[in-house]
């Protein structure tokens, strides 16, 4: 039996984390969660997820800082990232000349089917 793909959800809003964890688990993924950027990075190093969903607006360490750290860490740089954010113009906060952009972008409120399609596009249809 093919092991489930592992997804790390990073978001400071507990209800959003609960939603994504429940939905993605129902769709057959193994889900781990983090409520802030630092915790997310630590979990990513330990668990090596197949994909990360990442909020932008978080206290202490923003999603942009998390993404930058991920891309610059040889152990983590290969992990695809989908940004899920309520910030309308978040792309202007990023400098693509420095780091590889995220593999997916989604606006809140979350479109679950859209998220699923993005995940399967990135991880392959068998995910």
């Amino acid at each position, binding site marked *: 039996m093919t092991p489930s793909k592992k997804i790390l959800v990073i978001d400071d*809003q507990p*209800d*959003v984390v*609960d*939603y*994504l964890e*429940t*939905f993605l688990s*129902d769709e057959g993924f193994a889900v781990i969660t983090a409520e802030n950027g630092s915790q997310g990075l630590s979990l990513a190093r330990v668990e090596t997820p197949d994909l990360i969903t990442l909020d*932008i*607006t978080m*206290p202490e360490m*923003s999603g942009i800082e998390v993404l930058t750290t991920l891309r610059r860490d040889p152990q983590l740089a290969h992990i695809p990232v989908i940004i899920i954010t*309520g*910030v*309308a113009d978040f792309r202007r906060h990023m400098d693509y000349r420095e780091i590889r952009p995220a593999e997916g972008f989604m*606006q*809140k*409120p*979350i479109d*679950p089917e859209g998220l699923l399609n993005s995940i399967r596009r990135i991880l392959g249809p068998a995910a």
Partner: protein
Amino acid sequence: MEEGMEGLEKEMEALLASQAELVGSLTHDLKGLLSGIDGGIYIAESGFKKEKPERITRGFEMAKRNMARMRIILSSALYYVKDREIDWQPIDLGEMTASVSKVLMPQASHAGVDLLVKSEAGSFEGGELAVHSLLVNLVEYSLDICALDKENQASSVTLSATMRDEHAVFDVLAQGFSIEEETRQLALGDFYAPKGVDRSHLGLFVAHKLAKSHKGTLSITSSPERGTTNFCVRLPKTRPSDMPLRTDSDLETMFGDE
């Protein structure tokens, strides 16, 4: 006259910039809450489909919680964008504090923060909805910030009410955080200005505005050493007879020398 025009122009620019910031901040917050409502509905529905009663309860609680927060945010926004005539009527201290507590107890429970209410007997004149919104904003902000500090097991918010010196005095004492001076100044400023991407303090700004609309005051004191913040609202016991209405007379005063 040119100086007056320049001053008015700068004021308008600042107001427009503030409004733009407000819209951006509100949009962001509302998107998060909509996600919470959608999430609650999904979890409840999946609970029915998979026959998991725990999910049904959890899902409905999530949806209700986020809808309640959305109501608070939208109410704040409405009070911010438009001055409203106060519907003056007698307000009982105990009934008001009980009502505020009822609205926010689910959020407090979910956040793991104790919400306590203490009220002495007494009444005053004011706009019931406005005062309710004022207090809800202060308590909700305090609950939110206390909840962010998960390591602080002793966090609590106490809403107390008393009559003192011909004023209704409400105190919201938060044990679990100290407010930054910048946030305090922004909350008590003339225009709303979000602070970076940090938690919106629109609620504090609106609370201050509502206190002023009653010819009352909002003061904020904080102790980093003790990790406490107190919001103190003082509202006149009776409707001030000389309270000015917001009219075109403000513009007449500015150009009075012409």
